[in-house]
């Protein structure tokens, strides 16, 4: 039972990673790509970590695994914020629908 749940979670995680990567490749400007990365990938990471935690052999190992998620969240939030600030500072305008696709 536990294995099935963990496999399911891992598959979901992989799915979100796939979405994030497609977003990264297809989105028109840096801001959109940031969304894809921080939101989709982090969720994917969360699900993967949960799936692995179920298979972890001891509670301590499971907790250490789970600790990865919040750290990654904090780090990617700060980094994407810094990138967005930098991009704004350089005058990159967010994409508007009426512009033609790059």
């Amino acid at each position: 039972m536990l294995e099935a749940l963990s496999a399911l979670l891992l598959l979901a995680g992989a799915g979100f990673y796939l979405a994030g990567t497609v977003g990264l490749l297809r989105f028109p400007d840096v801001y959109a790509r940031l969304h894809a990365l921080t939101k989709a990938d982090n969720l994917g990471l969360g699900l993967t970590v949960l799936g692995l935690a179920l298979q972890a052999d001891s509670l301590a190992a499971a907790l250490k695994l789970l600790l990865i998620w919040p750290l990654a969240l904090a780090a990617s939030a700060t980094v994407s914020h810094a990138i967005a600030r930098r991009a704004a500072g350089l005058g990159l305008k967010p994409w508007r629908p009426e512009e033609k696709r790059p």
Partner: protein
Amino acid sequence: MNLLLDGLLVLALLWSAWRALASPDLARAVVLFIVFGLLMALAWARLNAPDIALAEAAIGAGLTGALLLDALGRLQPGTGAPAPESPAQPPANRAGRRWTGSVALVAGLLAAALAYALFQLPAPTVRLPEQVAANMAASGVDHPVTAVLLNFRGYDTLLEVAVLLIALIGLLTLGPAAGRPAAPGPANPLLKALARLLVPLMILSAGYLLWAGAHRPGGAFQAGALLAAAAVLLHLAQLLPAWASPGRLLRLGLAGGFLIFLGVAAALLAEGALLTYPPAQAGGLILLIEAGLTVSLGLILAGLFLLFAGAEERP
């Protein structure tokens, strides 16, 4: 199945290395190099060498990456525009191409010869891992890598710390004594908050790594690298000013670990030979040395970044 995963990892390694060296844009080369570093960390994990994986991630990819990015920043100050096309491709004229071709050929031949030779290797006659295992009891630590690093080949580590110290001293002769570092623009509040949150955690885990080194992958170098990462983070969040020219106390911190190691080595001469730990106090002495090294390595590795990054261009 394992071989497939390793094969994929090796291909990714080679691809990222090739692109890092051959890509026309310098910024992309550096980023790809950092990716290469992380992949190397994975490779070390696959070769069940957790100590090296930790060190590679923290020092190889982390610190080196930070240094490279900072150097990149200096080469194209603040434009953020893609770096000027400094062609990685060799010059187009015929002589240049022939030269490139011949060097590539020689490198290829060397690789082929080496690869071919690797398959002809006989089984090694001397089996060191067994000898390490046999002498583990007398080494004062349980983790084999730490035992080799600080006891069996402790002399190598002594010289290696000297190498780090001499690199820092070399930096001091280069970095201009005067000149405050240029403030990298207004402080990013989010970064400051993250730093305040993460740094205590990093220092705590550095202490854990130092303690765990005795019986689990870890040790002075990884702990020192973590401390350095904390210092870099504080600097980027402008909570820690750069060091232009270290005062007496900071110099003591930088050289302290090495001096402790040297003092212990000299004192142990009375035991008959250099670095001969008496079995009873071996563990304690190694921990003392590792503690000193952690602090000093932390300061030195941080110094490699802070001294280097802080000093702005001298006219």
